[in-house]
């Protein structure tokens, strides 16, 4: 992977002093991420270009455990790390040009901090979200950005563009600023960091981005993506950034709330509606089938009228997350006894789910292939046979009201279908009839006169004793 930086200032080759790298030497640095080479393809008084070439060892990447990371692609020999400018290049930049990044120039202190006419060329910059994202990130910092996405495969033109942009940045900035922009924003654009995010990452971000990051219009997105979506660290970094500006941490929260009051998220409305239905049904022993990370379970736990709560999901790692989020290991015994998490599947009959007051299928049915729905019906209504079943699912008619959603698109990539109100009613009535239940419907979310509610809900009530 390659990056070149050109100065066209008078005495352009002073760049060598600023970088602490002599223009007539070829230097090699063995780094954790690979071997970095620094050389000058051009070094005249009019124009001086330094190139940073990082040779990544793809086999070391896979075989060495140190890069076992957050992106699946890193675990493969076939990955773009040896070519694309990524967080690894950012690491190399930090190590090779560390003094310059800090704005130090021991040999010629007067050069430090002086704005220079600079040109940065990154021929393969991964940018999920297109070339515009590159512009959005660098332009506010004083760069003129020229970013063009490269084709995915020129021999297969139908495949369109790749996610790699050939990027040239031009601007007049002090060198340390320019380097710090690259240092922080390369990993942000890449999205897939090569190492685990740890708390020193927070320090590093503040150290290098502190001066300009606070004012950047995309600050939150940068922080979030830099820290690879690790929520705990994100709050920490935002708070500490606020402290850096001598803002009280809670003022930061206030600015967020000062935004136009967002409507209550649909997910919250849905949970409220489901809990309400469970209370109306007089349910005390409840199964949340497809509990995910346990958002509904948390609300059920908060209401002591739910005496036995079972969260079931087919994905073991999701259940682990739920256990984590609910802090099961730290829960008091009395509370802990009320809740059970277990792996289950609607493809298989599961006696552990039988005989409860209610089963909740909140945003679950649409994740089941239509051909497999009969299994779900049999498992839930035929075998588990609770007193009540609460089902929520998206209302497909409402999709037209979501901005930016294509016609016929689904709300989630794992959705196998989304029903209109009529389709949902057909299904629900047939299932109720077949299994000895009655069914009633309720809207969830803001009701549109034509499209109906964003989420539809059905409550099934058992009328016949189990067969």
């Amino acid at each position, binding site marked *: 992977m390659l990056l070149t930086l050109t100065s066209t200032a008078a005495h352009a080759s002073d760049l060598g002093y600023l970088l602490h790298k002599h223009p007539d030497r070829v230097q090699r640095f063995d780094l954790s991420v690979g071997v970095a080479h620094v050389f000058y393809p051009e070094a005249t008084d009019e124009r001086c270009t330094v190139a940073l070439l990082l040779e990544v060892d793809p086999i070391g990447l896979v075989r060495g455990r140190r890069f076992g990371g957050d992106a699946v692609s890193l675990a493969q020999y076939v990955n773009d790390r040896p070519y694309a400018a990524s967080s690894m290049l950012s690491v190399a930049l930090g190590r090779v040009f560390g003094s310059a990044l800090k704005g130090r120039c021991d040999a010629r202190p007067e050069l430090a901090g002086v704005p220079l006419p600079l040109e940065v060329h990154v021929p393969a910059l991964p940018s999920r979200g297109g070339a515009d994202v590159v512009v959005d990130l660098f332009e506010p910092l004083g760069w003129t950005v020229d970013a063009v996405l490269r084709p995915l495969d020129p021999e*297969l033109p139908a495949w369109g563009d790749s996610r790699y942009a050939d990027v040239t940045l031009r601007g007049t900035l002090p060198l340390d600023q320019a380097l710090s922009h690259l240092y922080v924003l390369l990993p942000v654009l890449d999205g897939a960091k090569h190492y685990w995010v740890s708390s020193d990452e927070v320090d590093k971000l503040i150290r290098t981005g502190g001066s300009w990051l606070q004012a950047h219009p995309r600050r939150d997105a940068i922080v979030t993506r830099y820290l690879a979506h690790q929520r705990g660290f994100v709050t920490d970094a935002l708070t500490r950034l606020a402290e850096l500006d001598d803002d009280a941490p809670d003022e930061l929260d206030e600015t967020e709330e000062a935004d136009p009051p967002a409507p209550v998220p649909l997910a919250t409305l849905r949970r409220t509606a489901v809990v309400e239905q469970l209370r109306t049904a007089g349910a005390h022993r409840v199964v949340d089938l497809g509990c995910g990370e346990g958002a509904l379970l948390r609300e059920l736990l908060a209401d002591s009228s739910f005496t036995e709560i079972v969260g079931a999901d087919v994905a073991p790692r999701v259940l682990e997350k739920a256990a984590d989020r609910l802090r099961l290991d730290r829960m008091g015994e009395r509370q802990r006894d009320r809740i059970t998490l277990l792996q289950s599947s609607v*493809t298989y009959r599961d006696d552990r789910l039988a005989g409860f007051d209610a089963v909740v299928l909140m945003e679950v049915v649409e994740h089941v292939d239509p051909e497999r729905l009969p299994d779900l019906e049999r498992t839930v209504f035929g*075998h588990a046979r609770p007193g009540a079943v609460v089902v929520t699912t998206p209302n497909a008619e409402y999709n037209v009201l979501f901005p930016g959603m294509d016609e016929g698109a689904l709300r989630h990539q794992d959705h196998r279908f989304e029903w209109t109100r009529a389709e949902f009613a057909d299904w629900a009535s047939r299932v109720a009839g077949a299994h000895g239940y009655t069914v009633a419907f309720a809207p969830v979310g803001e009701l549109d006169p034509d499209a109906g509610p964003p989420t539809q809900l059905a409550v099934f009530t058992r009328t016949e004793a189990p067969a």
Partner: protein
Amino acid sequence: MSTSIAIPQLSLVALVGVSGSGKSTFAARHFGRFEVVSSDFCRGLVADDENDQTVSGDAFDVLYYIAGKRLAGGRLTVVDATNVQRDARRKIVDLAKAHDVLPVAIVLDVPESVCLERNRERPDRDFGPHVVRRQRDQLRRSLRGLAKEGFRQVHVLRSIDEIEAVTITRERLFNDRRDEHGPFDVIGDVHGCRAELEALLDRLGYALVRDDAGRAVDAVHPEGRRVVFLGDLVDRGPDSPGVLRLAMGMTAAGHALAVPGNHEHKLIRALDGRQVKVGHGLAETLAQLEAEPPDFTVTVREWCRDLVSHLVLDDGKLVVAHAGLKEAYHGRASGRVRSFALYGDTTGETDEFGLPVRYPWANEYRGRAMVLYGHTPTPEAEWVNNTMCLDTGCVFGGQLTALRYPEREVVQVPAERVWYEPVKPLVPAVAAPSRGGDELDLTDVLGKRVVETAHHGRVTVRAESAAGALEVMSRFALHPRWLPYLPPTMAPVATSPLPDVLEHPAEAFAAFAADGVEQVVCEEKHMGSRAVVLVCRDQAAATRRFGATLGETGAVYTRTGRSFFSSALTAELLDGVRAAVAAAGLWDELGTDWLLLDAELLPWSAKAESLLRGQYASVGAAARSALPVAVAELSAAAGRGLDVAALLDRTTARAANAAAFAAAYRRYVWPVDGLDGVQVAPFQLLASEGATWHDRPHLWHLGLADRLVAADPVLFRPTRRLEVSTSSAPSVAAGVEWWSALTDDGGEGMVVKPAANLVRGGKGLVQPGLKVRGREYLRLIYGPDYTLPANLDRLKDRGLGHKRSLALREYALGLESLERLARSGPPWRVHEPVFAVLALESEPVDPRL
């Protein structure tokens, strides 16, 4: 005086006697070391002291727990405790009942002086004489009521001499007929249909024996086969006495066995003069018996009374009971076992016709024993989890049905007429596969499991792997009914010592030669995706055999059980396959109406376009963007006289590698529109009705494939092949040459298989195939630059042991599922090894091997 005590082989024996009466000595003399569970020992377990009376509660919890586990496993158990208190004995009786075994009491009634003397000799027993005295009082008061407490046998040994002299023998239970091996012809509910019974026996090959009056009194099979009557011989039909006469004659002559039905049960009660409701056709029987001489009725009563409610036959492989029997009750004896056998798993409710509602126990049956039963008239005899109901409503105008055991062949004769109007129309008693009886239970797959395979012993699946597989199976795979098989992984050839390649055919030939395999077949490795094709001859076959509910006629799926196509496209593809199979004449030739084919589906891009674009093409694009610029900058630096020669050379080579990489993946891409452009290359027939084909040589399989190609050369694609003799140098050289030509031309490589197909060597199964992948293709696996010497050297250091072991285990599991499928095993049995393959595939093995 010598007493002999006979106790049931499976029973819970309570020794009763005061401290010092010699129970432990007695137990040690008459029972096995582990059969005896002593309260003193359990005290020691929980409190390090056999005499610590303060922990008795906990000690007995442990005792009951151990005894319960033993009884659940069908093992005789002896409780060595004083048991002089009624409460203690009640727990034992309850425990026996809970496990449906017979409780037996053996009382050691020893004079008090002896007990006191014995306790004095044991310094650890420091309790005073009043304890023994109190226990004796309790014992004396208990003695009379023991039988009433629920013990099926009470044996009281009243003196030291008697205790010394007694012998204990074990009797098998009445239902234990495991030594009867058949073959049998098991006949469902007859209900007085004598003519149909005679016709059925005739069809089964029995010769009827008639008395002077011309009445059938016996039937004899020339090959010594025997009949098993499943009960309900009487009521409703025209000639219950005639049926009884024949059945009684056959059992007396040793030509038949019988279990009672609920109708016999009721008949006995009626004959005994008990108050019974004379309905359900009993009136007819009683009227018919009126016409018989009184001694006939007496014989009938005795014969019916002596019938045992269920029988365990043929080493436990066959269980017969009128209304069926769940596994936990097999070979057990208790009131509820008997009532299950007679009446089924009733829920206590009645349906809208006033008939008892029965729980469909067979849907949940997971036992290995075949269970044959009647009781519930059903339109067709169908297998449900290795059970079959043989009551096909003869008396209601249906059929009289027999099942030949062990052949599993159904033999039927139609009713001559409707003899009795049914209260309600005949409906299936349990859900057959096509109606949901194939429902799988979570306990069939979850947790750590051990799957028995015929070819490779026991294969263990770890709980974590099963959990992962459950998610894949539930969220992405087809319904298990369409996945009777998942292909095993295949090991690569041993790493080549040649300098420039990672894999080379020479190692494959050498490996098979070392395993004693002389003939191998090299098969071209297609540049596609592994696909399993299940095709049924028609809709009816799909419904009958695989329980199709939505009009499916088969499936085309990936290694993890995902469908390749939408249901519409799948149907279209299957139409093509079906037509070719018909044109090739395979349906009739193989005597089947379904086929399971192992194949490759091309192009790879049909399944993997998003992977090709997102990963392979992306890497190519990144390389194409970065490397030429790097070469240019390095050239400029070189132009300035800087020493970058080595770096420039290396970077130039990498640019060439990246181009070769792109060329490699592009071969896997061709445009597909619907099914246009999609090709199937079958290479093995996995299974068809009643048969797996792993013992046929690979050339036989490829011959079948060639016939499909001939029938439809657009849809099917041939597999190029070469036979190699591993002991002949020229032949091996030709094999190497063949591979080189194939891969130089851009081919993926080849798979080398033992020509004979399944082969066992000295160390068990031989690898069913070894893949030898081409040098260019491996760029897609190990990255564009894997051929750089520094990289190749490191990649050659790879461990293959785990992969090979995994390949064999998955191969054995695959065969196991096929054999279970071909033998019409219950769905959960077929699913078990299939699920295990998926679980093993989630084990952490280098996916590049």
